[in-house]
C-alpha cells in the first residue's frame, strides 16, 4: 500500500514539476537517443569515413581527406562489379520464386480448419530461426557426398551435383536456401491479406457468375497488388543485402563464385579493415537501395490510387 502511494505520489509530484508535456517528452528521449547514437550517427560517420583514406590495420585514426577517390576506385574493382551483377541476379531470382511460391501456399491454405491453421504455423518456421542457422543446416543438407539431398538423389538414381562446391551451381544453391528461408515471409503476408479481403466482394463476384479462376485473376490478384508490391520491396531489399547465408554456407566461395555485395563489403571492412573503401561501397549501395524503395513506393501509390478510384 505505502509503496504504491509513494510511487504515484512521486508521479504526481513529477507531473506538477515538469507537466504532462514534460513527461511525454521524457518518454521520447531515451529511444531517440539510442537510435541517433547507434544508427544515425554511425550512418553519417560512415559517409565521412568514405571520404577519407583509412585502413584500420595501418592506423587507428582516420587519414587524409581524399574526396571521392574511394568511390572511383569501385569502377576498377572487378570483384565488386561481378558481385553487383551476381547480387542483382540473385535478388530478382529469389524474390520472384518467393512471390510465386508464397502466394500459391497462402492461397491453398486459406481457411480456418485446424489442419490448415497448423499447416500455416509450420510453414512460417524457416523465417523465424537464425539466418546463420539456416546456412548451417543447408550446408549439411547440400553437402556433396553425405548430404541428405544427394543421398535421396542417389537412391533415386539421379546424378548428384556438388551443390556448394561447383562455381556455377553454388549461387543457385544460395537462391534455393534463400527461397526456403524467406518464402514464409511472403506467405504470411499474403495469408493475412487474403483473410482480410472483403468477403462481400468475393461473394458478389461469385453471384455475378465468375468462375473461381476468374475470381482469382480478376478480383483477388488486383486487390492484392499493393500488398504484393510492398512484399516485393521488402524481399528485394533484404535479398540484395543477404550476408548471413553466404557467410555460413560458401563463405563467398568457391573462389569468388558467391561473393555478393554485402559479403564483399564485410570482407573489405571487417576482414581486411579497408574501412574507407567498405564505407564507400556501402554508401553507394545505400543510395541504390533508397532509389529502389522510392521507385517501388511511387509505383505502389499509383496502383493504390487507381484502386481507390475504382
Amino acid at each position: 500500500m505505502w509503496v504504491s502511494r509513494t510511487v504515484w505520489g512521486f508521479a504526481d509530484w513529477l507531473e506538477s514539476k515538469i507537466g504532462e508535456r514534460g513527461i511525454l517528452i521524457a518518454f521520447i528521449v531515451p529511444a531517440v537517443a539510442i537510435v541517433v547514437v547507434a544508427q544515425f550517427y554511425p550512418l553519417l560517420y560512415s559517409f565521412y569515413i568514405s571520404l577519407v583514406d583509412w585502413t584500420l590495420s595501418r592506423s587507428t585514426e582516420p587519414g587524409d581527406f581524399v574526396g571521392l577517390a574511394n568511390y572511383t576506385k569501385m569502377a576498377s574493382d572487378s570483384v565488386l562489379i561481378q558481385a553487383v551483377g551476381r547480387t542483382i541476379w540473385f535478388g530478382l531470382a529469389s524474390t520472384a520464386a518467393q512471390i510465386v511460391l508464397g502466394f500459391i501456399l497462402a492461397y491453398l491454405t486459406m481457411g480456418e480448419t485446424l489442419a490448415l491453421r497448423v499447416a500455416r504455423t509450420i510453414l512460417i518456421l524457416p523465417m523465424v530461426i537464425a539466418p546463420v542457422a539456416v546456412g548451417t543446416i543447408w550446408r549439411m543438407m547440400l553437402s556433396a557426398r553425405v548430404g541428405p539431398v544427394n543421398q535421396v538423389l542417389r537412391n533415386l538414381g539421379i546424378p548428384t551435383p556438388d551443390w556448394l562446391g561447383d562455381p556455377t551451381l553454388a549461387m543457385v544453391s544460395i537462391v534455393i536456401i534463400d527461397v526456403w528461408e524467406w518464402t514464409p515471409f511472403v506467405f504470411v503476408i499474403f495469408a493475412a491479406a487474403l483473410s482480410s479481403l472483403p468477403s462481400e466482394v468475393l461473394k458478389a463476384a461469385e453471384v455475378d457468375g465468375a468462375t473461381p479462376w476468374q475470381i482469382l485473376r480478376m478480383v483477388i490478384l488486383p486487390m492484392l497488388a499493393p500488398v504484393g508490391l510492398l512484399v516485393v520491396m521488402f524481399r528485394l531489399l533484404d535479398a540484395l543485402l543477404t550476408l548471413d547465408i553466404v557467410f555460413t554456407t560458401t563463405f563467398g566461395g568457391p573462389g569468388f563464385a558467391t561473393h555478393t555485395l554485402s559479403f564483399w563489403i564485410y570482407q573489405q571492412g571487417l576482414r581486411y579493415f579497408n574501412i574507407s573503401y567498405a564505407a564507400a561501397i556501402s554508401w553507394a549501395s545505400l543510395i541504390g537501395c533508397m532509389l529502389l524503395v522510392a521507385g517501388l513506393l511511387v509505383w505502389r501509390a499509383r496502383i493504390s490510387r487507381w484502386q481507390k478510384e475504382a
Partner: protein
Amino acid sequence: MAGLILSNVWKKFGSVVAVQALDLEIRDREFVSFLGPSGCGKTTTLNMIAGLETPSEGQILMDGLDVTKVPPRLRNFAMVFQGYALYPHMTVADNIGFALKVRNLDKAEIAKRVADAAERLELKEVLGRYPRQLSGGQRQRVALGRAFVRDPHVFLLDEPLSNLDAVLRVQTRVELKRLFADLDTTAVYVTHDQAEAMTMSDRIAVFRHGVLQQFASPLDIYRNPANRFVATFVGSPPMSVVEATLGDDNQLRAFGTSIALPEAVLGKLKVGKSYDLGLRAEDLVLAPDGQLKMRVDLVEHLGAQTIVHLSSSQGRLIAQSSPTEPAKAGDMVGIRLDPAGLYLFDRQSGAAIVTPGLIRQN
C-alpha cells in the same frame, strides 16, 4: 457541490470555432442540460468544464476559483461518458473504486463506499464481473456508480443514455432523475434528446453552431423560446412554421385565413410585415367548425396521441387529432387555432417576437 461560471469562453480547433463567446452561470446544486444537435458545441463545453479541453479564451470559475488551467485530476469532478469508458481489465468493484484508490482512501472505506453504490444501483450481484460480462444497462449503471462513489464537486454526464435501447432509455431516465434528486448536487448533462433535457433539468442551455441560444427552465424553453431554432428543436412533434403577414385590420393572414391577435402583442408588430408563424401540434385542434380547412395527408397513431399531417395549397401543418375519433388520410378537416398558443419570429434573424409565454404574461 459547487457553482460554475463560464465567462466569455471560446474554443477553436484550428480555424473551426467550436464554442463562441459563451457566458453561463450554473448555480450550486442545479441540474443543467446542454441541448443541441451534434456538432453544436455542447460536448466541447462539457469537456472544457471537465478540464479535458482547455478554452482558447475565457475563464471557468468554480465557486469563484479560476480552474481554467487546473488539470482534470485536481478538479474533483466526476464524469459519465457516452461509451461508459469502463476499464476492461478491472472488475466492476475495481472500476467503481478506482477513483477512490487513486485518492489513497483505505481499503475498508473503499469497500464500504463501493458496496453502498452497488446497493443503490442494483449492482451487488455483478461486483466481481468484468465489464464485457455485463449487459448494456448494467454497464451504464457501473459508469454511474463510478461517479456516485466519489462525492465530487460537479457531475458531468455526456449523453449517458444514448447507447441504451429505447425502452431502457426511458426507464433509466426516470431512475436518473430520482438518483439526482437524492444526491442534490450540481450536474451538467449533455444530450441531443430534448425529451431527456426537458424531463431531468432545472435549466436547459440550448446550443447551436457553438453559440448559446437560450438558457432557461424547461417550461420557458418550451413556451417562451428565444428564437425559431429553439422553438423548432424542442417539442415533439416539431412545431409547424409558415409565413404570415399582419394585415391593416391587425389580423394575421396565414393559410388564406385571418387570425385575431391579442391586443397586448400588437405593439411589437408592424402592419404589412411578414413573420414566421409557429404553431405547435397541441394548439391545433381538429374541429368541424375550425376556421382552417385542410386535407389529411398522413396519420401517425402514437397511442396517447394521434398526429395528423395536413396540407392545403397554402402550406403544411402538423396537428393533433383525438385518438377516439381519428381522422383518415384523404379527409378534409377543419382546424381551430388557439391564438394564445402561437409563436411569431422575425423572418431574418429568427428572434422570437410573440410567444405563448409572453402572451400569458401580459
